[in-house]
């Protein structure tokens, strides 16, 4: 696939390693200069200008998008309802036209489609604000994610993909956390077998499946950093479900097995592909938190000794996790260099 982000296990020396070499060989500033140049550790003038241009262009688009959202939220009474809808719809059409004239991967096309995605959300918000539809906020975000999906696909841009993923997960988080019953989704899912914890672990699996899809399909629009947002979201929900299950708020006995299964498949895949240790770190982080809560639960905080136990557990598990991750990263980097 064109432009697919290479695995981050590129065996380029890190800053810590460069410091280590400078110290070990007692390099002078000229030696350090040469080392930094050889390691491509400092960007040249052109790369720097390229970064500056990228930062300003993306920052500009995000600012414009924020301006649109603020405008809708301002609910300006000087413009009639028809005018407010008209303005947003004109903007949406203009974005569409620009994307047709300068289609992605041209920046103008991508930026126009990103703005179209944000404008779609703003239109939905304006609709809810104007007609008081009674829709919950998670329904707004979920509708936004669903309606914005085709636009995101057309944009084929990592920034749009990340925004879509965040909107989707925000919708799911609001659904799981803010509004445990009621609304259209709960009418479908809120029957006996689907208590909140079950829904949360379900959301974990939705994110895990999405992550696997992106891993296998290898889209230019979903590079490594976006996939990392996906796997982080998955185990943020997983940790939430695990903690609830441990403190007895989950009614289903399948929560912890489902979480362990999610951890196992992600670990197995990461270890097999040997590309990135980030998913392993996320899984281990989730394990440390859930196991810590479990330990507090089973000991029932009978006395102050439990605090020492928790401290030792945290130190032990994080040390082991750190060693596993650092060792794995070094091994994979060495293998990549060979």
């Amino acid at each position, binding site marked *: 696939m064109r432009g697919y982000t290479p695995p981050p296990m590129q065996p380029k020396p890190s800053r810590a390693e460069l410091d280590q070499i*400078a110290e070990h060989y007692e390099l002078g500033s000229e030696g350090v200069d040469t080392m930094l140049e050889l390691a491509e550790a400092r960007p040249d003038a052109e790369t720097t200008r390229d970064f500056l241009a990228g930062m300003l*262009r993306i*920052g500009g688009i995000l*600012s414009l998008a924020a301006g649109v959202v603020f405008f809708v939220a301002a609910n300006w009474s000087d413009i009639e309802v028809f005018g407010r809808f008209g303005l947003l719809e004109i903007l949406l059409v203009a974005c569409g036209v620009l994307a047709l004239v300068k289609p992605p991967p041209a920046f103008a096309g991508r930026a126009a489609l990103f703005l179209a995605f944000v404008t779609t959300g703003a239109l939905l918000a304006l609709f809810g604000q104007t007609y008081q539809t009674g829709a919950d906020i998670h329904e707004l975000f979920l509708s936004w994610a669903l309606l914005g999906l085709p636009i995101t696909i057309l944009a084929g841009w990592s920034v749009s993909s990340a925004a879509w993923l965040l909107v989707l997960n925000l919708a799911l988080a609001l659904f799981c956390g803010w509004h445990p019953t009621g609304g259209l989704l709960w009418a479908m899912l809120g029957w006996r077998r689907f208590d909140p914890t079950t829904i949360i672990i379900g959301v974990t699996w939705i994110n895990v499946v999405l992550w696997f899809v992106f891993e296998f399909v290898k889209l230019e629009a979903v590079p490594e950093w976006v996939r990392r947002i996906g796997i982080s979201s998955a185990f943020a929900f997983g940790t939430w479900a695990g903690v609830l299950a441990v403190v007895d708020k989950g009614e289903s006995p399948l929560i912890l097995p489902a979480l362990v299964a999610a951890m196992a498949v992600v670990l197995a895949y990461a270890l097999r592909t040997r590309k990135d240790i980030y998913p392993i770190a996320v899984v281990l982080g989730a394990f440390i938190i859930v196991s810590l809560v479990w330990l507090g639960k089973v000991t029932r905080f009978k006395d*102050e*000794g439990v605090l020492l136990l928790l*401290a030792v557990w945290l130190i032990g598990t994080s040390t082991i996790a750190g060693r596993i991750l650092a060792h794995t990263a070094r091994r994979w*980097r060495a293998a*990549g260099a060979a």
Partner: protein
Amino acid sequence: MSAPTSLENLVDTLRVRGVIAADAPPSPEESVHRPWFVAMMLGLAGWFAGIFLLAFIGLTFELRSGVAIFVIGIALLASAWALYYTDRQAVFLDQLALALSIAGQCAVAWYFLGDVESGLIVSATLLVLQLIVLFVMPNKTARTLAALFATIAWVYLVRFVVRGGEFDDMFDDFGRYNRHAGSGSVLIAWLLTWVPMLFAAGWLTQRENTWMAHDLRVFARPILTGLLLGLSLGGLASEPFVKLAFGMDSVGVQMSWLALFPLLSIALAMFSAWCAFQLRSHGLLGFAVFAALMHLSRFYYLYGTSLMWKSVIMLCLGALMLGVGVVIRKRLSYGGSAA
């Protein structure tokens, strides 16, 4: 020329270039590389373990005497230092040492600040404590955390020097702001806080080759990392009031034009992103972008300036940034085709 693909290759190339003597010893076998997210996980775990440890010690030994708390704190810090010192090339005891260090710092701070209400004394004491940890603890993670906390303590120190206030105002001083609204002092405090920090971060970033060649690198790297983290996030504490003001919390809060201050915090975060790019640090870059987006969310919720004005500001800023970015990119493309 493509970059050497491993530490060994880099050392070999340096040997060929004559930077390293031909008969110099081989490169260090044990790499110290630790990805940013691993360092973050270890730092957080060590911090919480330290809190648990201190709570255990406090409850078990029923520490009521200030001197006893101080002695325990110093003992914990000394143990942490000893563990770091004896285990300098490994990571196994680092976590225990970090937890001991955090617990010790909290105990010592408790001794000095238990009954203190002055925000100035609290922030000055914490700044001194963090600077001592920064220069004494022989460990990069401990130094980086100390540099970050020292930056935050500095922000509060300037705030309290210029504007006064008590310890409680550190987390929510909106009530105080209402009583002492004054834009001049806010602006002076902001400039006094950040101009030296911006200069320090910029200088350390640009002069990396100089300090890397000096023993001071063991302090400079953590200081730079702590500074960049502080620049990304610390703008919040230097704004007119310390208040997150998200969602319903912000309803009814009137803040006048000073509600525009989060834009300056975004600018600080973007400067941090710029430095992170120079250092090729994806972790710091990501953190800066995350912080900038958080400041943008806060900007939305800070009432006082109408949303319509904020919308106009964002649209104008967006157009300006986009225009400049497009011009730079066009010049780059033109230069590339000309070459």
